[in-house]
């Protein structure tokens, strides 16, 4: 299958006030592939991820240089409508953050704000996405109860369902499994495998095995720089740089 370029990050520099959090990042992300961001804590993975759906716009003191092309269009172009951009790029956050609403309303929220009115379609979509997030069986009898009554792992799967319900092109996942037990983690990983048929996925993870299991491409970051990126297989078996190898094998420091 011909690989098609989905996102192209070009010479991106990112500053929080005077602190340079990202230096000269250039990276290509292909459609229907899973790209994993790995690297030690504080190296800028979340920052880069949040550049991709312009979530960093909320921070008044950030400054950004360079380009990010989504389907050949620069998302930082002044003409870009941030709201519809975010609808195309879904995000699952590091901490589960369900709305204090019912389970149903959580999943339906994205559809509601995007103007869907058809009740039957909405109910169908809620069921479908909850099923694909491996949550339906656990919640189908209490779909109209508060989402806050769910366990942390269930909440995280709910957040994944919520992000998928608006059918974005790209799904950004910031350590989606950090709050999950091994079983829930496995379910999420299976889900990621299925999802890449439809979506382009970028996942941040601290878990090397997880990166190896789920991703096609791995990018290793260190101190705000992209150190090495390659096919996951290559990165984990024959990394070019010593630094990458040390990190992957846990000999870092």
């Amino acid at each position, binding site marked *: 299958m011909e690989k098609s370029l989905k996102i192209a990050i070009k010479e991106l520099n990112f500053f929080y006030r005077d602190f340079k959090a990202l230096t000269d990042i250039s990276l290509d992300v292909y459609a229907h592939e899973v790209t994993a961001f790995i690297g030690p804590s504080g190296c800028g993975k979340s920052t880069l991820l949040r550049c991709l*759906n312009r*979530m960093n716009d*909320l921070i*008044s003191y950030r400054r950004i240089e360079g380009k990010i092309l989504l389907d050949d269009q620069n998302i930082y172009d002044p003409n870009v409508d941030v*709201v*519809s951009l*975010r*609808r195309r790029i*879904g*995000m699952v*956050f590091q*901490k589960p*953050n*369900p*709305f*204090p*609403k019912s389970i149903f309303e959580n999943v339906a*929220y*994205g559809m*509601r*704000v*995007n103007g869907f009115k058809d009740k039957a379609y909405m109910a169908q979509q809620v069921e479908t996405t909850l099923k694909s997030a491996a949550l339906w069986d656990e919640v189908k009898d209490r779909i109209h109860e508060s989402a*806050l009554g769910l366990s942390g792992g269930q909440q995280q799967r709910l*957040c994944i369902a*919520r*992000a998928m319900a*608006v059918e974005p092109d790209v799904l950004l996942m910031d350590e989606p499994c950090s709050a999950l037990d091994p079983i829930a983690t496995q379910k999420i990983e299976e889900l990621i495998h299925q999802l890449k048929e439809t979506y382009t996925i970028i996942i941040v993870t601290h878990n090397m095995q997880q990166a190896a299991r789920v991703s096609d491409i791995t990018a290793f970051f260190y101190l705000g720089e992209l150190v090495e990126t390659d096919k996951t297989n290559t990165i984990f078996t024959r990394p070019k740089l010593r630094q990458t190898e040390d990190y992957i094998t846990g000999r870092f420091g």
Partner: protein
Amino acid sequence: MIKSSNSGKSRCRTEKIIRITFFCISLASIATLVLITIFLFMEGLPVLKEVSINDFIFGKYWYPTDDPPAFGIFPLIVGSIAVTGVSSVISIPLGVLTAIYLAEAASTNVRQWVKPIVELMAVLPSVVIGFFGMVIIAPFLQEVFDIPTGLNLFNASLMLAFMSIPTICSISEDAIFSVPTELKEASLALGATHWETISRVILPASLSGITTAIILGMSRAIGETMVVLMVAGGAAIIPISLFDPVRPMPASIVAEMAEAPFRGDHYHALFATAVVLFLFTLLFNLAADHISHKYKQVGASTL
């Protein structure tokens, strides 16, 4: 081992002493409250020997010094409810919208300046606000609307709104601002606009705080004495227009207490009015308490 258990014992004793001290102190303030309440009822209830409770509450005429006197406080109750109601119509939208603006739209700079100023409004003594209403607003209203007096329901409500806006705004703003950023981000990430995020996520999540703020602001208005005494006009009639003068309960009590013969019927009637006022404010505060407890979980367990 022995040493540590020894010091443990003495620490236990200290704990006990501290606990008893705090218990006594809180007992003292509760006792005061209870005593005041008992006194209030003792001085107020004898009026029922003169009029039935129904005639007292729903009687349309308040002529306490006539012969025979008429002790119907319905106009006073309506006066209180009217000023509180009209002032809420002004203060709730202004207070809550200002809070939304400050918490969500204003830049950090603006917020840093405006919030303390709004809170500072709360420290204006009520007599100053009453004075302002009397000398500035009253003549203005009289002239613009061509009415016999500028001291009326509308003026009093305006001044009361002025007094409750800081309470409503400041407490609502705290509630809105404390909605976790994570929720806001979750909404924006799903393609919601800023306004949709405010109306569908942030406001529902801070509703209990906002409701508490509103009720506290309203209870401030209903119990306020000085302002209504100065600018409400003081006529014990049931108002039909915004520009009718009214005589809310606190104004009536404070204006007449000095003249009412000690332990006479009028005196008892005023205390009974105070009992009614007390029940009103109690109701407001219980409601505020109930609502803030009922919905508290929503905010706390979001993360």
